[in-house]
């Protein structure tokens, strides 16, 4: 009688989700349309069906998303029959809550934090499920599964609550909240293997496709209305796919011919670069870019 490692990780994640549903008043599940949050939705089905989810879904929409991902998001939500809240970065900009960056390297990545925290406050959410994994990045490697946020939405990396066994402490005061990461112990490969095992649909941009791209800082970015070319940058068409789903302005594509799920899994198994290292400009700002953003309330 033993479980495979994926079954063990699944059982752990379901346990985490049910703990939060039982102990917190008003959770929300952050759904971006990306592979990790797609897995979160399947785990929520496993945790709560045949009942409805005891929480709504929320997407922090930067307005710079891939259209394929937004279409997938809406289709998946409709299939599930659950409620989706869209928190819009554009609205935060229009309301003067944040100021848009300018220049060819402008990104709305940082602005999302304000939109997210405003939405959490507006709806009175006291827990937010996210799909972050510890293998993604070294500050995330340090974070608890249930991670406390103060009333500014901030994370205190040196003052984390000890987290023992599978006993989670979800006690908070009004205005504070917890971020919950049921996939903490999953790797990128685990996520893809789970997607394969469960037969989950993912947005088409995760598979190889022809796309007009340009090269910047060693990464391939999609041509889109949200980027400006810098002198010397030339668009060209290549066969690419995405390893992560973020903004078009700061998410790099990888050259690939993997058009089937098995090809993607094989590619991930053989990769020599981490997903964030290969595809996320937002982590390249400094050695502690993620830690600094998390301290400020980022996902």
């Amino acid at each position, binding site marked *: *009688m*033993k*479980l*495979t*490692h994926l*079954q*063990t*990780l*699944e*059982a*752990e994640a*379901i*346990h985490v989700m*049910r*703990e939060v549903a*039982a102990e917190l008043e008003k959770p929300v599940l952050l759904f971006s349309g990306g592979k990790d949050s797609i897995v979160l939705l399947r785990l929520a*089905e*496993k*945790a*709560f*069906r*045949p*009942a409805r989810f005891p929480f709504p879904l929320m997407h922090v929409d930067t307005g710079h998303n891939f259209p394929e991902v937004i279409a997938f998001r809406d289709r998946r939500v409709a299939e599930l029959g659950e409620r989706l809240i869209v928190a819009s970065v554009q609205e935060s900009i229009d309301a003067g809550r944040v100021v848009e960056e300018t220049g060819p390297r402008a990104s709305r990545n940082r602005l999302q934090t304000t939109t997210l925290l405003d939405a959490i406050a507006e709806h009175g959410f006291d827990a937010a499920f996210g799909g972050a994994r*510890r*293998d993604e990045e*070294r*500050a*995330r*490697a*340090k974070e608890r599964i249930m991670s406390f946020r103060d009333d500014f939405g901030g994370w205190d*990396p*040196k003052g*984390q*609550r*000890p*987290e*023992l*066994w*599978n*006993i989670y*402490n979800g*006690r*908070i*005061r009004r205005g504070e909240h917890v971020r919950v990461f049921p996939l903490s*112990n999953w*790797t990128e*490969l685990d996520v893809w*293997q789970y997607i394969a*095992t469960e037969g989950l649909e993912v947005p088409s941009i995760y598979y190889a496709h022809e796309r007009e791209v340009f090269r910047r800082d060693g990464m391939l970015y999609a041509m889109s209305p949200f980027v400006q070319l810098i002198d010397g940058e030339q668009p060209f068409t290549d066969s690419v796919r995405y390893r992560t789903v973020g903004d078009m302005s700061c998410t790099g594509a990888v050259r690939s011919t993997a058009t089937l799920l098995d090809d993607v899994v*094989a590619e991930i*198994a053989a*990769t*020599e*670069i*981490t997903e964030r*290292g*290969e595809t996320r400009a937002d982590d390249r700002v400094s*050695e*502690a870019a993620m*830690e600094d953003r998390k301290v400020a309330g980022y996902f």
Partner: protein
Amino acid sequence: MLATSSDLLRLATAGSVDDGKSTLIGRLLHDAKAILADQLDDLRGRDGELDLARLTDGLRAEREQGITIDVAYRYFATARRTFILADTPGHVQYTRNMVTGASTADLAIVLVDARNGVVEQTRRHAFIASLLGIPHLVVAVNKMDLVDWSEEVFDGVVRDVCAFRDQLPSVRDVAYVPISALRGDNVVEPSDEMPWYGGLPLLEQLETVEIEADRNADELRFPVQYVIRDGASDYRGYAGQVAGGVLRPGDEVLVLPSGRVSTVEAIDTYDGPLAEAFAPMSVTVRLADDLDVSRGDLICRPGDRPALARDLVADVCWMADAPLRPGGRYAIKHATHSARAIVDAIDDRVEVAALQREPGAAELALNDIGRVRLRTSKPLAFDAYARNRATGSFILVDEATNDTVGAGMIVTS
């Protein structure tokens, strides 16, 4: 590589940079191909030298101070097994973080610097591993290259650990491996330098240690976590994670604390009904009778029920600046059950350096471990931690700050 059918081993390492802990982890991850190219680049300091400590010391403060403060989790897999490694700090002032990482581990690696032999930290780490009920211990005697690969030095370490072995009652087996993490000897590949060593290299040790028997497969324990109700289909099921034993449809079961008896009608999952469920599966149980069952209740077999009591004795690791004292009141969370607890007495405090229990302690300070008597506001259904880690553990929470201040391992009622 695609080890979808492999099982999962959780291990904890403890130590500081000086012990070669980071070098060892770096070596394990590197040789298991779990460090990728961009991470390797990232590990090079300004002088271009590879600095493996940067791998696990993920926080700015850790890199600045050159010490591990909090647990970092790392992941690697071989063809045989998938591993979750909790890399925990070795310094005594971060014991609470070490305890966090050790609480879920199946195996602990205790690092010994061959030049220094068994020191106070070795005993402390081994003791904490035992206290947290980690069944498998590997003593990795590192830096063998600096003692001329000496069998005598290695034997000395084995002898010194054996001398306090009987103070590690929860540890079922101890393996000793002489290694050089820096050079890779006996980490993944066997060493040519130490032909006198007849055992397995470290990684193979981790791949083959038998963990199936570690869980309590005899006594059914199912803490009810969440009641799933669906009005449309008139569905009512009790969701939870099996904490021990085996659950089958048709089984007669007892619900605590009510003491009512019923029969398992079905074990439901999203993927369909199951013929049996065992730890650590997350399932939903339907009972044949319409009982009042709610979160915090425990389902077991009528023949082997846990203790049901308001008084309990536990070893507590204290994790807050404000000390634990008799009369102190806390929130207690045990399995899925929350209540309040008051400290009746402190029986003793463990002097970890000497591995001795000293009676007459007035308080437990930060990072202290001691035996404590508690009284709870409601009866808890519990086992001794040595029998079941899930139903024998609890946390104490400060009701004013909401901080987790204590980790408890139940000894008896």
